[in-house]
């Protein structure tokens, strides 16, 4: 079974071909930070109101450390316990993508904050800015709980691991990052910071896949060991999700202050509750909030893009295309 302890090396026959397909699809979607054009953002930054500048600075500070937390958990916990080589292939690829995200946000920070002192402060945010610090504490509380587990031998171990994984995928990637993306797209809906938004599109695409991979690990475990999913686990997942919403909401209060045009902390609360429900339902748990999505601009993210190449770099290409020259294939 997937969570049985060990370092399985057998790729043929392959037990979880779906994981391997995800690995291959991820490779076809390679992008690099050098492709993101942040040039137009600098002139936008000069136009922002003080409240908007505050929001952007907080956002950058969150991004500065968020992906590193994710990458660390990936190496220290997920890679250790998800025991299938094809799944580890995917996780290795994901680790690379997290590194690209870290690099993207580092580049962003270096671009947005020309002052070395400001840059250092952004990285120290995790210690000094309460709204960010408490999000980090949430992460460490839930994902740090299995740091000392070397093998998942008991059902309790495996439930602890599942909580870690769900926290990782549904709360950190699936809620905190989605919250942050909403701020970026809100700025974008007002024609601001296109560079940040186009890089974020690609990060968003990657994070969507990471989350989906983690969820399919949960699906697999549920199919293999349904007894792990008892009422107690459900209670804990819901409690964790509630805490995550609260933590992200506190961040929202910090970012939105008394309200920005078309964006208030109350809007964010609805949005976060809506997203949290989506995650719970996807994982087979009951919805907790029953709230509707308030942000029409998020609807845009669900729809296929069509860029005018004069304007934006088109992100819809694949790499690693296969096959040989032929003249009689259907097209």
């Amino acid at each position, binding site marked *: 079974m997937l969570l049985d302890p060990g370092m399985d090396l057998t790729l043929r026959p392959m037990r979880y071909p779906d994981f391997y397909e995800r690995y291959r699809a991820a490779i076809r979607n390679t992008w*690099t930070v050098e492709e993101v054009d942040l040039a137009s953002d600098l002139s936008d930054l000069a136009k922002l109101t003080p409240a908007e500048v505050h929001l952007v600075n907080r956002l950058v500070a969150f991004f500065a450390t968020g992906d590193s937390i994710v990458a660390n958990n990936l190496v220290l916990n997920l890679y250790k316990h998800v025991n299938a080589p094809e799944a580890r292939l995917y996780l290795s690829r994901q680790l690379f993508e997290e590194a690209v995200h870290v690099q993207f946000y580092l580049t962003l920070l270096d671009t947005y904050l020309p002052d070395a002192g400001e840059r250092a402060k952004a990285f120290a945010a995790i210690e000094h800015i309460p709204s960010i610090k408490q999000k980090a504490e949430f992460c460490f509380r839930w994902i740090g709980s299995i740091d000392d587990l070397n093998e998942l031998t008991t059902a309790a171990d495996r439930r602890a691991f599942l909580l870690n994984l769900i926290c990782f995928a549904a709360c950190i990637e699936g809620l905190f990052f989605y919250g942050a993306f909403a701020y970026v797209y809100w700025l974008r809906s007002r*024609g601001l910071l296109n560079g940040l938004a186009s890089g974020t599109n690609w990060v968003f695409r990657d994070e969507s896949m990471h989350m*989906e991979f983690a969820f399919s690990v949960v699906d697999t475990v549920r199919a293999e060991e349904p007894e792990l999913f008892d009422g107690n686990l459900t209670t804990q997942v819901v409690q964790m999700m509630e805490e995550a919403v609260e933590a992200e909401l506190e961040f929202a209060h910090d970012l939105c202050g008394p*309200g920005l045009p078309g964006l*208030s902390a109350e809007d964010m609360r609805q949005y976060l509750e809506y997203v949290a429900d*989506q995650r719970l339902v996807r994982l087979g748990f009951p919805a907790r909030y029953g709230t509707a999505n308030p942000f029409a601009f998020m609807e*845009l993210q669900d729809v296929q893009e*069509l860029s005018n190449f*004069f304007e934006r770099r088109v992100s819809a290409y694949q790499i690693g*295309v296969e096959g040989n020259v032929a003249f009689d294939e259907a097209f």
Partner: protein
Amino acid sequence: MTQELIAPAPVAGLAEGLAAEVERACAGLPGADPARLLAAVRGGASDAGTLRELAVGEAAALVAVEPAYSKVAARLLNAHIADEAAAEGVTSFSASVAASAAQGLLNGATVAFVAAHADELDALVDPSADDRFGYFGLRTVYDRYLLRHPVTRRVLERPQHFLLRVACGLSDTVADAAELYALLSTLSYLPSSPTLFNSGAHRPQLSSCFLLDSPRDELESIYERYAQVARLSKYAGGIGVSWTKVRSRGSLIRGTNGHSNGIVPWLRTLDSSVAAVNQGGRRKGAACVYLEPWHADVEEFLELRDNTGEDARRTHNLNLANWIPDEFMRRVEADATWSLFDPKEVPELADLWGDDFDAAYRAAEAAGRFVRQVPARRLYGRMMRTLAETGNGWMTFKDAANRACNQTAEPGNVVHLSNLCTEILEVTSDGETAVCNLGSVNLAAHVGPDGVDWARLRTTVRTAIRFLDRTIDRGFYPTEEARKANTAWRPVGLGTMGLADVFFALRLPFDSPEAQALSTRIAEEIALAAYQASADLAEELGTLPNYAQTRTARGQLHPDHFPDASPVLTDEWAALRERVARVGLRNSLLVALAPTATIASIAGCYECIEPQVSNLFKRETLSGEFLQINGYLVADLKRLGLWTPAVREAIKRANGSVQGLTDLPAELRELYRTAWELPQKALIDMSAGRTPYIDQGHSLNLFMETPTIGKLSSMYAYAWRKGLKTTYYLRSRPATRIAQTTISSTVPDPEAVACSLENPEACDACQ
């Protein structure tokens, strides 16, 4: 830390003002509900302008629920534009021109013309014409086309003032201005963006495209080309430039006795230069580099857009195109060897095409002058991979482009490349930079339930050609090489947009024989009317100066190069031929189908000759992201009682496809297939059918959801065999995608999880 969850108290009167405005904006639009829109507008605004801005955004976001909200958003935005212009004292057309002139934005002749005819021109303005704009179109006009005060950044013209200003910039009489304005205000025809930006302006650079021959194989010439590219780019021109004549890597440099690093470092510099020149602050500079596949650096050239590898050998901004001689494709088909040359050693190849090229190439090969040899198919496969991975590395065919070009009658007049969008095919030389002035007929505005209104289409074409011809004389040329070539050859490029609208309106699936025949007929009508108009102009104003060098002067018209073409307007072609023999033509080239990305947005029609990409998609532009939905489909769904939240969600979930909507009758599912669902062979066949009537080229995108080398190589070989002159982007889709946030989550179906390439026998869903 936690603050109270209290929205700021609304300023008294704001909400009432907005309610009245939203009510007005929804008037006469049955689908639009003012209450629904008002409910969606959230707080945070402290003034009426910001509140209206929020309302515009919410209305725009409702477009996917009810297309009528596009108009609502446009009306609200238009009210905002009117307020902004009024704040600059602009309430009439003549006041708008005066205000712009006061800021030094317009040229003296246009200002004087408007001042002399202020009342007559003011009376031409049709205020109701604004209601023809959808939101995305008006937003584009507002964000990028309206002239703005240099300091306050407020607009100095309203949309109709802008269109009339464009018309006046190209007119000497009120009647002329009225004639062109009538086309513009009905969105029946739009000139290209540079003309829209700059007509009547202080520096009226009106041309869209510039094509520069390869630099000579020397340092000074290379740097001179950079400077030309920068000057042309500054005034909003797209650049095509060949690099075929520059020596390849390892070539000896006599002056220093060192060896060349090849073309890549030069193209890196070009890349930076292009990125640095922002087109008048309005859009990014853009360029495409052409290279012939016998150049020894071709493989490195094909890697320039890869996002992996050494960044010092990558160009992230340049577009790339292969300029392919038939000999290469023949060798690909024959699975033969292909020789790569250093142009310094074989300088003659770049200036030859057809039989002369074939002979010179084989002679150089036989003499062993090549740098190395590769299997032709391996290089072709590499080209296909570049297309699949980057969409770039466009396949354009040198011999087809030259063979039928009106400018290549005399030896030495050679088409060396196409342009940024692969629709312009004109000769270039070291001292001649080819230029093209473009405009496009909106076919959607010429179709009724019974079909295309041919008489109106011809009238539109004749007016369009007359004004395109004028842009040649009134344009400001950023370089002498461009002025010289344009005034000597007088080429123009009339194109089309909205072909997909025509097919939707007439219920013709894109790949039906009827659509194919109609498309060819439209091309024939446009070409005929364009030639007639150019003959009229020749009679009135004289032929182009280089007329003696054209194929027309030798009695050949473009369709004559295509013996398989079967024109239906035979009598009129015969009459035209007889007339042209007497009076000549004013323009060496007349028809080119540009991609029309931006102007089709303004006109609210589908781009160029393209099928729809999706029934529901978003456009990403510098102005932001915009939802677009297929209004023809929505009308049908409403008629069938199928326009429900569940259906909307299903369309969204299917990435804008309706193939899974089993309640929709089969013929409608066929009609509303997307570009990804159409056989690309049909697109190529349609383009081949139109080619006899396109004396330049057309920007033909091809679409493949999941490209493979096998499918692509078959497709492009077919395009070549069908005689296409050029192709444009290969569009594909990302291998992974964003998780949709606004549609309901479900636990995935285990059947779907089982589907994978790894265990195909488990999967029936994909067969």
